[in-house]
């Protein structure tokens, strides 16, 4: 067992579970604990365990996923730039108001990554300095990567006027 897991277990007893697959160690925080512990857990990983590089923030929608208990998962992929080790912190959130604490105070790089998760899944990040849509137009109302949004959209993509040759 890695040293950082001992540190985490000592600091946040019972707040998370871990799993491993093909060498990727995951630290999983369930939806009821996530708002309270996530930021502290990330801070502990960054400041005490040396995971100083936020590699990615990925949103996942687990609607009807086999064996899933919560709906939205947000995966923070952390890397230790000194040793090269990786750890994946997976926090969950649920409808109707999916909200997680923002990691921007820890990593500036989380800014746009969290905005993208908000844009695509509607997961809000508390404490984010500038939570706006980033990829879709700001008038867009749906969250396109949710599993209940159809691949081809709902007709928004053709909601524009047409210019004919005679009038241009």
């Amino acid at each position, binding site marked *: 067992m890695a040293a950082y897991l001992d540190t985490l277990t000592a600091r946040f007893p019972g707040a998370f579970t871990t799993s491993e697959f093909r060498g990727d160690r995951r630290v999983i925080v369930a939806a009821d604990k996530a708002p309270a512990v996530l930021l502290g857990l990330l801070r502990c990983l960054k400041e005490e365990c040396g995971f100083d590089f936020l590699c990615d923030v990925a949103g996942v929608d687990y609607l009807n996923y086999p064996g899933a208990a919560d709906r939205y998962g947000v995966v923070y992929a952390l890397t230790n730039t000194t040793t090269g080790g990786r750890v*994946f912190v997976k926090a969950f959130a649920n409808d109707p108001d999916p909200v997680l604490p923002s990691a921007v105070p820890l990593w500036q790089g989380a800014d746009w990554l969290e905005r993208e998760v908000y844009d695509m899944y509607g997961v809000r990040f508390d404490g984010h300095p500038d939570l706006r849509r980033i*990829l879709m137009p700001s008038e867009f109302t749906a969250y396109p990567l949710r599993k209940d949004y159809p691949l081809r959209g709902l007709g928004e993509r053709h909601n524009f006027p047409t210019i004919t040759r005679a009038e241009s």
Partner: protein
Amino acid sequence: MPLEVLPQIDEAGADQEFLYTLNFGPQHPATHTTLRLILTLDGETIVKAVPDIGYLHSGFEKLGEDLDFNQYVTIVDRMNYISPFANEVSWHHAVEKLIGIELTPRCKYLRTILAELARISDHLLCVGAAALDLGALTAFLYAFNEREKVYNIMESAAGQRFHPSFTRVGGLMNDIGGDVVDQIRNFIRTFPKAHADVVRLLNRNRIFVDRTKGIGVLSKADAINTGCSGPVARASGVVRDLRKDEPYLAYPDLQGAFKVVCATGGDCYSRYLVRMEEMIESLNIIKAAVENLPAGPVNVALNDKLTIPDKTATYRSIEGLIQHFELFMWNRQWEPPVEEVYGATETANGELGFYVVSDGHGRAWRARTRPPSFIHFAVFPMLMEGHQISDVPAILGSLNIIAAELDR
């Protein structure tokens, strides 16, 4: 150049009428593709830059949930479209990690060679276009000439010069012939001269150096804090390269053939130098890999039921036919574990990773990309503050922002 007066400007103040706003893009030649910047200017000095992106967001990740592991490679190709093969390698690296496939030695070497060629062509375009924006047209023409050679190699190998879509789960679409190896050898022979030409055109070019040195300085701490990777981070002194740190494909065998190129300046000129040197290191890798190219099959064994059989096997043998059908029918296909993995490779722009969530079917439940361009562009406002408008193309060019990878 950072002006000493800048910190005194309180841009939220009410008496700031001398500040004005300039809209840069989304259709502007210096942005190459579709980026938009909203610049707040004091004279010619940029006080604040706010990027607005999404002008090329075309739903790659949603398509990744709809197409199977082999089909999605055509979409992944179009992500970083100036080095498509590197993206394919990255995607199938993640998928093979999920399914648990060990590739054949020949396939590993071929993927390595072609991915390094893609890196060279990516750096060529980046350097050429950055120089073009600063007024040095000749370097661009030289760089494009070399890119055409890489295109030709790709075309001979895969049949498409631009988007080869060459990798498959567990191997490649087909093996390459001796003519492609000859072309690659030829490229190894001729490329150093072209590289030296570009170096002679730019390295001591007064205008180019003046416009890039000291411009857009990214410190090492900032590079780590904002998540930069690849040449951008290495030019700031972050010694991190997945080819060394987490060797994949044939890189474990080729560790002696290359070094990690780093710089400490963190400015546009350092990023340019890192890119130029990386091309030479890539060429060394290709050289070593071509000389040690193993013989043998390019796909994993047929009875593993993982890889598409070639056409002869499909038409001539019952096992091949059955396997072909198994892999193409919606309800059969692969049976990956119900798990999630993160697989990353070092592409020309940095760490390109895929976070693949699987629900046990041949299609990903979620195919998240870690796009280096996206993360590098987030740094852009920070680099921009205090510079002149004319530095925008220099910094943009040195970051090598590819809009399709940025917006996906």
